[in-house]
């Protein structure tokens, strides 16, 4: 519960600067533009389906999640407020989880702003809302995993731009592991591992309309590992 106090502070602090609004607006605009405008995919497909909308999500999240998470720790380190933060009556774990929940809530707001797209599609045809709900849940978990990784990376540097770039590259790699699986020189076991740790593969299973517990479990595991690593990094910083 104490983490929620930190999460609340982080969430509102995000919207104290214009960057929060810009990132949210950019995300919803990009998602809609890729769906409705680029290549005219939606109207030429002529189906009341959000499949193409969500097929772009892993790449969009790889760009936007680092932008949301980059300031979480890097800014505190740069301005020197991280030491003060550690003196507050919160454990490191609570601080890490709180900050993570804060940025996750920011992403949820950005995702809410894309709801106009399924509403428009539902007005244009008989949209099946089940896959849309599953895909939104999937996007939220995919972003949760991405944000947790980026929060951890943000704790490694005091430069927000570096945090964004490293975060974006890391998430891109996590989304492209499946390409490794189709390479001919890769042994079968390695191909299977690369498919299993690919974030977009787990997302596509969810985006079809099936809430697959193992896929959600994968994202939760990534979040936990990243948050534990984040806590470890901050512990090392605290202890010099």
């Amino acid at each position, binding site marked *: 519960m104490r983490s929620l106090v930190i999460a609340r502070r982080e969430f509102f602090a995000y919207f104290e600067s214009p960057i929060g*609004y*810009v990132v949210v*607006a950019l995300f*919803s605009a990009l998602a809609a533009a890729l769906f409705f405008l680029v290549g005219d995919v939606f109207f030429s497909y002529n189906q009341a389906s959000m499949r193409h909308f969500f097929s772009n999500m892993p790449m969009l999240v790889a760009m936007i999640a680092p932008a949301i998470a980059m300031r979480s720790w890097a800014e505190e380190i740069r301005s020197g407020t991280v030491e003060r933060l550690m003196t507050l009556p919160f454990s490191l774990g609570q601080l890490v989880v709180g900050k993570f929940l804060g940025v996750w809530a920011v992403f949820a707001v950005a995702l809410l702003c894309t709801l106009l797209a399924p509403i428009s599609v539902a007005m244009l045809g008989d949209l099946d809302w089940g896959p849309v709900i*599953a895909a939104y849940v999937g996007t939220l978990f995919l972003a949760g995993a991405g944000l947790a990784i980026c929060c951890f990376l943000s704790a490694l540097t005091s430069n927000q731009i570096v945090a964004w770039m490293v975060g974006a590259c890391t998430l891109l790699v996590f989304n492209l592991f499946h390409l490794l699986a189709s390479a001919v020189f890769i042994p079968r076991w390695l191909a299977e591992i690369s498919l299993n740790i690919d974030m977009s593969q787990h997302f596509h299973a969810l985006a079809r309309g*099936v809430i*697959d517990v193992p896929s959600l479990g994968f994202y939760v595991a990534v979040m936990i590992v990243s948050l534990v690593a984040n806590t*470890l990094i901050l512990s090392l910083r605290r202890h010099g």
Partner: protein
Amino acid sequence: MAVNKIKRSLGLKMLLSTVLIVVLVMLLGTFYLRFDLTASKQYSLSLSTKDLIARLDDRLQVKLYFNKDIQGHEYLLPERLLLQDLLGEIEHLGGDLVSVETVDPTADLVASRDAEHVGITAVPLNGQDVGSLSIDLLYQGLEMRYQDSSEVIPFVRADEFEFAFSVRLAALIAGEKPVVGLMSNEPLLPPQMPGIPRQVPDGRVFEQLRNALGERYTVRDVSTTQEAEIDLEGVSTLIVARPYQFPEKFLVAIKDFLSDGKSVLLLYDSEFIESNTLQQTAVSTGLESWLAELGVNISTRLVYDSNSIKVQSGSQEIETPSGMQRVPLQAPYGFGVFSENDSLNREHQITAALGSVAFFWAHAIDTSGIADNLSAIDLVTSSDQAWLLPADSELAMSTENIRDLQIKAYASGQPQSYALASLISGDFGNQGKAGRLVVTGDSDLFHNLTLQSSENPNREFAANLIDWLSNDSDLITLRSRGLRQRPLHDFAATYVSTHGGFTDDEADNAHLSKAAWLHTHFVQRMISLINVFAPMVFMLIAGALHFVFRRRKAKQVKSNV
């Protein structure tokens, strides 16, 4: 020292938690816990398939011939994912009794030979070529082996997968397919000669119906020539197709079959129409007096419906964005009754999930005087804007005749809805056994020319009828599952209809079609732009308001201080 100790302790904690989580994820992966949120439970097997899998008492081997590489044809991906998903669920449900193996005949020579041996051939792909990277052959076949038998689906489509799989599994478990009798005046097939492909005689106009049912049933021909033997042994359902001067002994056989509590599908026509010349000949079926005894009256007049199939009635030149083009002119042909929505009985399993049924030169069925021991319900009707026209009406599909027919129909009186397919059930022979008879006022709805397209909805109607009459209604539910088409609203059609529709004037039509195209393009562009900019503008306004309020608040605080 202390710092090192802390570092070691934290490192250990980190390592332990990571290992714990990896183990947890691996354990989670072995669980098959999922929630299918799609409207038709598209990614989940139905109860009837699960029941079939539960009935397995020996090992079922499923081999999917599937080329993994679909480069250049990525649009196939959703269908392929659905297939793999359903096979995964079958494997999970079957446990040790079901094994699913996927082989790629394009990469594996042995698999390629096996595919050829069992009759699975690659489907050539055209039109999506992206150079040397694009594949041109697609394997998507399935082989099922159970005990000493095997079944093959040469090309498995995801939307029909569960049905195709289940009927074959049912046949493998039962050891044989149910038998459907087809009684008609068609010529019989010549005997099969080794090494010589069998020629289908011209007059076999229900060959496509046989093919459509052949996946699930063994279709046995029952010839109606005077000298032919009537063999209905083991027949679950009898189809009486286009009866023509039936000898008495066949009528007796039909009556006995129904009295025995079995089912008959009667495809009735009181005239034959030659498909090329559209010349009609009135015929006597030999069943008239029997149907009258039952209280089923089939009109000799033809149903003309304003909700009808569009046919090509000519062609015209129109102006398109790419210049003048000659396009076929389509017009609604009133004798091609198109039954959909309320015209299909949604209360009955046969028609509950059907999209549409199309009739050509149909007759109205009246069951208001049905016999006391029987009951009747209408399965398919015309729309309520239908009329009856004389059987000798001109049937040509030219624009002029279509207009003349329309005038005649409107002048013939008040429109009303007419039954085109009815179900009569009850004790036909007073032997205490309930038989079932479905009568359609048209036999052309299952004619080769109607069913030649595998997409034709009448195929589904035929299969549903036979499944229900053969007491296999579970299959009807299975057949209607799969990827459902959800087309977008047709702005162009709405625009055309709100502007009076197309007329005989080519110039007007060209102008209207261009305006409809521009209107559609405009609406689509507007929807796209609203979706892109509305949330952005909303967020920017929210941000601006937030900063204005904050500044005002700060000023207020400053002034107070």
